[in-house]
């Protein structure tokens, strides 16, 4: 099946430059940096990233500057004569001690953010997140709400090998039922898995944590702005790993309350479906068996 397409790869390369020039403007955002953060903590992480990047760029300019100067200035073809020195204790101490100082300076603010990040106490809302091959299940421990979150149908259909369907704006980053949380509240996630290791990740929250079978991992976020935030599984979990998106809707408290009420008011709503009922289409018929895939 893929052999018949092998020649297409050469075609791809042939048209690469052209394709780049005409790439759809809607998709072309050429992002060069971390996304803007939707959480206060995320802003601090982003700040650390920028701090580290700037330090690296400055060191890089110095190191590559010295290198470039040497390569131009001390060329044999320009008649350069080699000196004979082969060590200098003073220089060696300098370029050992200065990096140590820079690193200590970088480690201190980083440690502060880390400690803040690990503080999962005093949460306003607890959600248990379970990874499955290949979907997520969200259980609102304080409300008794529970549902599965699968990739959306449009992405699912378009992601079949050679489907050739048009890809929508949120291709592979849309779900049927998103996680819903109130704005400005500390949400604690308790992560685990039903089968292999997955990782729950929403880039704009700066939260990523593994969902490990047999273990409950904790993390938290506090979204500052309402809106829709998209992410996806970040730990290789098999065939459907690229196809288990995460969407979080952040709402005002009253909208959120209405959403909760809508799901809890009538007895036995759609909560607590059996896993089998919602097996994603991209999963092969036997979701577990190794030799069947």
């Amino acid at each position, binding site marked *: 099946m893929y052999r018949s*397409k092998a020649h297409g790869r050469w075609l791809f390369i042939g048209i690469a430059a052209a394709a780049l020039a005409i790439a759809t403007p809607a998709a072309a955002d050429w992002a060069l940096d971390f996304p803007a953060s939707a959480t206060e903590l995320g802003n601090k992480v982003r700040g650390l990233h920028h701090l*580290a990047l700037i330090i690296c760029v400055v060191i890089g300019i110095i190191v590559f500057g010295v290198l470039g100067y040497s390569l131009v200035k001390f060329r044999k073809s320009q008649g350069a004569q*080699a000196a004979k*020195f082969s060590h200098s204790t003073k220089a060696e101490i300098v370029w050992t001690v200065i990096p140590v100082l820079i690193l200590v300076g970088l480690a201190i603010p980083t440690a502060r953010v880390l400690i803040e990040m690990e503080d999962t106490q005093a949460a306003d809302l607890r959600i248990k997140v379970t990874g499955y091959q290949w979907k997520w299940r969200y259980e609102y421990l304080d409300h008794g709400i529970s549902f599965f979150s699968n990739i959306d149908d449009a992405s699912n259909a378009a992601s079949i090998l050679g489907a050739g369907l048009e890809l929508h704006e949120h291709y592979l980053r849309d779900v049927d039922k998103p996680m819903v949380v109130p704005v400005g509240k500390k949400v604690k996630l308790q992560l685990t898995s039903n089968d292999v290791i997955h990782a729950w990740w929403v880039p704009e929250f700066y939260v990523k944590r593994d969902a490990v079978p047999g273990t409950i*991992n904790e993390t938290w976020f506090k979204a500052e702005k309402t809106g829709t935030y998209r992410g996806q599984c970040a730990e*290789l979990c098999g065939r459907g*790993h690229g196809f288990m998106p995460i969407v979080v809707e952040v709402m005002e408290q009253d909208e959120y309350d209405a959403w909760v009420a809508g799901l809890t008011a009538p007895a036995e709503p759609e909560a607590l479906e059996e896993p089998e009922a919602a097996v994603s289409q991209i999963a092969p018929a036997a979701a577990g068996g*190794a*030799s069947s895939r």
Partner: protein
Amino acid sequence: MSDTTHEEHHDGPHASGMWRWLTTTNHKDIGTLYLVFSLIMFLVGGTMALIIRTELFQPGLQLVDPHFFNQMTTMHALVMIFGALMPAFVGLANWQIPLMVGAPDMALPRMNNWSFWILPPAFLLLLGTLFMPGGAPAGGWTLYPPLILQTGDAFPFVVFSLHMLGASSILGAINIIVTITNMRAPGMGFMKMPLFVWTWLITAYLLIGAMPVLAGAITMLLTDRYFDTSFFLAAGGGDPVMFQHIFWFFGHPEVYILILPAFGIISQVIPTFSRKPLFGYVSMVIATSAIAFLSYVVWAHHMFTVGMPAAGMLFFMITTMFIAVPTGVKIFNWLATMWRGSISFETPMLFAVAFVILFTIGGFSGLMLALVPADIEYHDTYFVVAHFHYVLVPGAIFGVIAGVYYWLPKWTGHMYNETLGKWHFWLSTIFVNILFFPQHFLGLASMPRRIPDYSVQFTEFNMISTVGAFGFGLSQLLFVWMLVKCVKGGEKASTEVWDDPQGLEWTVPSPAPYHTFETAPKV
């Protein structure tokens, strides 16, 4: 070693054809075998990389099924690490260590033959898993359970082939340690050894420390799957995360196994073409040892999202950050070697200079990855992919290539074609950056690694990266061509080859005769 035995009267191989290569115990023959094997594996692994990059050229699945894609990422890494890079370094060690320390051969020549000939069957087995029911392993080269336990019929074959590769590496490492400690020419104290010999000595100890740990981990996987143990299975009271600790206790030293010999090569090449002795020899040795030591206490920096106490994360963050210090010392020493030298730009030097620049870029991203809160965002994205490809491709692989150009005239007796070498250099260097630099941006924009398909906002940089991949891959064909031409003929190389290079290897004729240093040289 002084008595001349009957065998040593011959000055060529004793057998001919295939039999010669199967039975050879000559370090030069075995070095050649390793290097040729490595080149073949480099091309095989490269083909897999091009399949990956072709699928990722644009969003949507066009070429391969996701399960096959995962097999490709897994096999690409295993082939490149265990098939291309490690054998390349062992091949260079085989050729060069006896020549550089003035020894007639490796200390354990029969074992040397054995450690090479384990490799081809191991790789036949590993590559053969592609055709087994359920396909090759598809859980990533890191082999994390429980996912890796879902491998089809291939599973025990993968474990067995990795055991063979480990055995081969350990035998090779023992041989190198014994050779270096016992067979140096009179007068060559430890602190007079060339740096390539030093870095290999330290690497060999890393191998002996790390490979058995991998062997233990994969054996536990095997018993978990077939003998009802539950080392890593939560249902039986085991812990999947324990595997990751064991794996990375092997895995981080392993990544230094892949770079330390390259540091050694660069430390040989830069002084030769700067016409100046290496700056800071003693601090180079200390820095290499410090890196090797630290490499055993940083492993959990690969696992910051797995759930660890904050104190643990801080510990691993700080140890990891401090690896940057000895790494920095090495880079500064190379700069100081070039400073006020008399520099010329033959191909080995070009690759060495590119190594210094591009490896440093990989070191920078490594430092950024050490910062836990930021790593939690970088982890398992293309930012990490960019990091380790910068240290491994224009790092480790450029190191190997620099070494090959540097010593090739000694091996073949011919100068390589300098024009071809320069083309190979410039095309490789330009394309490797087109290939890997945009991956930093993809990672920052939150594209996960190991996915066969991606959402549309990642399209542009993926296209650029794929173009770079084909450019880089095709440029390596120039390398193959250059090698073939140089083996077949070319300008005669002198004994010294370069302008007054330092080291015993430049005192024997080019090509180096089949037997060298039958009587030990004086240093």
